[in-house]
């Protein structure tokens, strides 16, 4: 067998260029559509990329806690992606600055003078706000956000350090250490992602509440991370890096996990919707009514169609596709399904965030509007930075964890492993 030709390292400059261009375009949006629109776009984009990062962090921890063998060659790419967390923290700073310099612009409760949408009083006179003001205040928001990033960056640092160090000395202590960090990190991450999504997204409509919300975000993070992962795997295979490393059974297992979390997302989302619909209590249903009922002028609400797209696009379509065994093995189709799930995850976040911003009639801002351009620009911009961080890390270490105790199991992973 002849030695394969060396493969050129991926170019990081392009990703950074896209990142810079996206961020610059979003900055233009500030002057064209106003600070609120641009900031909302920034929030959606950040939540999207942070969600993918959290999902990858969870996948790394799940790998370690289960002492999994098959996913060892895949784990290394997730570890590279975790390098993006510190940059995501930096990119969150503008939102924190806005919270302090322009309170109430995004999260209305940050300014007690913000008028309520029903026209009766302000946040400061709203008993529903006053009762939860011990939690929903800028100090808590800032401190907790810093703590969330501290947890994610800290865990990412240890997992990456241990894994990369093992490439050098082959010491099994790194694996055992990662297992301990995973055991401690899983509950910490579960709590931090729950409260992060409550602070950043759910509190946009602070009257509304649902105990399922953290679980919903967890499901979305896992789906987006698995989908991003499968795209990376096939990209590396197409480049030639993963030829002879990645086999059909890796793809099959990732496909099965994508299918499982598709069902889990539907289960969680349906349960939340069904229980609120069935109880029909106005203090809960208003959140869905805002997204389903006609606007005050009697015109249809665009969010109704987005909601239906989520139902069919986020569940039925990927569910039916991923049931199909050959599709899970197809390096042509599985990344396309992954890309679709990532797109719908983005749409799901838009569905949760954008209608919280209302016009002077109290109707939600429509989905299709010029401001969507800034959301796409911000997503591309932050995405460029994340991809750049991934590629920078990718270039500095071994392609796969060559000294991991389970690396051979992963390289020889085949279905005969089944009991």
């Amino acid at each position, binding site marked *: *067998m*002849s030695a*394969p030709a*060396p493969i050129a390292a991926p170019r990081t400059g392009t990703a950074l260029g896209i990142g810079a261009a996206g961020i610059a375009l979003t900055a233009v949006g500030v002057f064209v559509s106003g600070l609120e629109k641009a900031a909302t776009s920034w929030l959606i984009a950040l939540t999207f990329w942070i969600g993918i990062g959290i999902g990858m962090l969870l996948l790394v921890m799940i790998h370690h806690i289960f*002492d999994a063998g098959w996913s060892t060659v895949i784990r290394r790419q997730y570890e590279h992606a975790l390098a993006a967390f510190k940059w995501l923290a930096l990119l969150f700073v503008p939102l924190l600055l806005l919270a302090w310099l322009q309170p109430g612009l995004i999260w209305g409760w940050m300014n007690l003078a913000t008028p309520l949408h029903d026209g009766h009083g302000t946040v400061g006179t709203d*008993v*529903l706000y006053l*009762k*939860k003001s011990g*939690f929903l205040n800028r100090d808590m928001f800032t401190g907790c956000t810093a703590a969330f990033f501290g947890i994610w960056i800290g865990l990412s640092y240890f997992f990456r350090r241990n894994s990369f160090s*093992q490439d050098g000395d*082959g*010491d099994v202590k790194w694996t*055992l250490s990662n297992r301990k960090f995973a055991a401690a990190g899983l*509950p910490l991450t*579960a*709590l931090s992602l*729950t409260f992060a999504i*409550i602070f950043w997204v759910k509190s946009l409509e602070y009257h509304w*509440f*649902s*105990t*399922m919300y*953290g*679980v919903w975000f967890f499901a979305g993070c896992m789906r987006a991370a698995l989908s991003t992962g499968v795209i990376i795997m096939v990209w590396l295979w197409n480049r*030639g*890096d*993963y*030829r*002879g*490393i*990645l*086999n*059909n059974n890796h793809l099959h297992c990732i496909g099965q996990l994508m299918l499982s979390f598709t069902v889990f997302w539907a*289960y*969680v989302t349906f*349960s*939340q919707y069904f*229980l609120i619909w*069935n*109880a029909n209590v106005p*203090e809960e249903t208003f959140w869905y009514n805002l997204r389903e009922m006609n606007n005050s002028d009697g015109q249809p609400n665009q969010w109704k169609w987005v909601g239906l797209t989520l139902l069919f696009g986020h569940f039925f379509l990927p569910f039916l596709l991923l049931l199909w065994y*050959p*599709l899970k*093995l*197809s*390096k*042509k*189709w599985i990344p396309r399904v992954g890309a679709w799930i990532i797109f719908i995850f983005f749409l799901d976040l838009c569905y949760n965030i954008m209608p919280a911003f209302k016009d002077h009639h109290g109707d939600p801002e429509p989905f299709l509007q010029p401001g969507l351009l800034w959301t796409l620009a911000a997503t591309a911009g932050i995405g460029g930075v994340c991809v750049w961080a991934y590629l920078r890390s990718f270039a500095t270490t*071994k*392609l*796969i964890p*060559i*000294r991991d*105790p*389970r*690396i051979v199991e992963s*390289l020889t992973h085949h279905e005969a*492993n089944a*009991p």
Partner: protein
Amino acid sequence: MGAHLADHPAPAILAEVQPASLPRKELVHHGRDFHWITEKICGIVEGPTPTWWWWCFGVAAFVASFTVAGLTYLVGTGVGVWGHANPVNWAWDIVNFVFWIGIGHAGTLISAILCLLRQKWRTSINRASEAMTIFAVACAAIFPVFHVGRIWMAWYLFPIPNSNYIWQNFRSPLEWDVFAVSTYGTVSVLFWYIGLIPDLGTLRDRFFTVGRIWRARIYGFFAMGWRGSNRHWSNYEMAYLILAGISTPLVLSVHTIVSFDFAVSLLPGWHTTIFPPYFVAGAIFSGFGMVMTLMLPLRAIFRLEDLITQYHIDNMCKITLATGTMVGYAYSIEFFIAWYGSNPYEGFAFINRAFGHYAWAYWIMVTCNVITPQFFWFKAVRQNTTLVWCLAIMVNVGMWFERFVIIVTSLARDFLPSSWGYYSPSVVEIFTFFGTFGVFSFLFLLFIRFVPIMPMSEVKAVTAAADPHGPHPH
């Protein structure tokens, strides 16, 4: 649909692969071979009935008679003999139903979900766990069936056309329970039975060889002509996999629907969106508590340490820890959102749980379900089987109290303060519930006496001898 991804030249990095040494734990200790496993498992069924078994059987039958007596008295008198009174018209009956149904879930988790996840360690405990599932579902079914009062009308629960044109309320989650639990029970029995067939064939042949013809005929009848041919094994494996695929969503749906019994209502403390996954996690938690409660004594009595190893116990403890922590997450989020939601009724329901008349029950629940499993973080605890068994018992106790806290505290302090009350169970209720432990033990004792408690072929498949790269069987 695309070439096999591995059909390509190996990259240079593979030459650098040099894994650190961290051997996987053995699933069968002391290199036990196929013959030893067959003799060990079959020996439990074939040997003379131990004296302890008769004592336990007698005690179980006696305890079960409490349920028979309680139910007989109830049917002869009326549901009023239970301690229900306004506003608590649902109490131990539904508490006990959810308690037993939850216990059943670990059996399906071990047999179906761990099978799909290719967790080989499940093989030593799946048979007994599946049996546990079936017996727990049987115990659970007693309560709603007898709660209908006129037990001879219980068939009205099923949508069978009748002369009065009475149809069920299909919008009620209690009716969904009927379909969910009966389907679950049926599939669980099928799953258990399919897995038994090869072992029943083995027992048939062994009884025939030693001339115990009647036993051979009975086992032969249930073995359905099993000959162990390649075709039989192929059909068996496929049937097992399909049933695992069916059971997995089924087990999740059953406890989801059980959670809907409460969550679709408007009652504070019941109507909360996290109930479905929270109930499923709690069910798995309680089920593993019961699996350990049963398996650890069996391991000691039948000297099964080579088959149920410390690794198995570690894994069961860790799953209990994980699911207990999930339950703790759900408790915390419920409490937090009750405050965050600022609904005074919801807030009161939770404050009342923690500090009201039933605070004792709430803190027993928290202690047993959230604090107890945290001991499983420690290796020293996991290696002390007596302590593990005690903690597993506490998990069982805690999960019964969880259902009691959810159901009774919300009902006893409902929207109308004028109707508030304090529920206490009647003697009949206590007898009936106490007796179900006898019913369960009675059935489980029959199981361990007449059915192989482990799937021999599956256990053999995870030995070193079955590994084509490992040592060969003797």
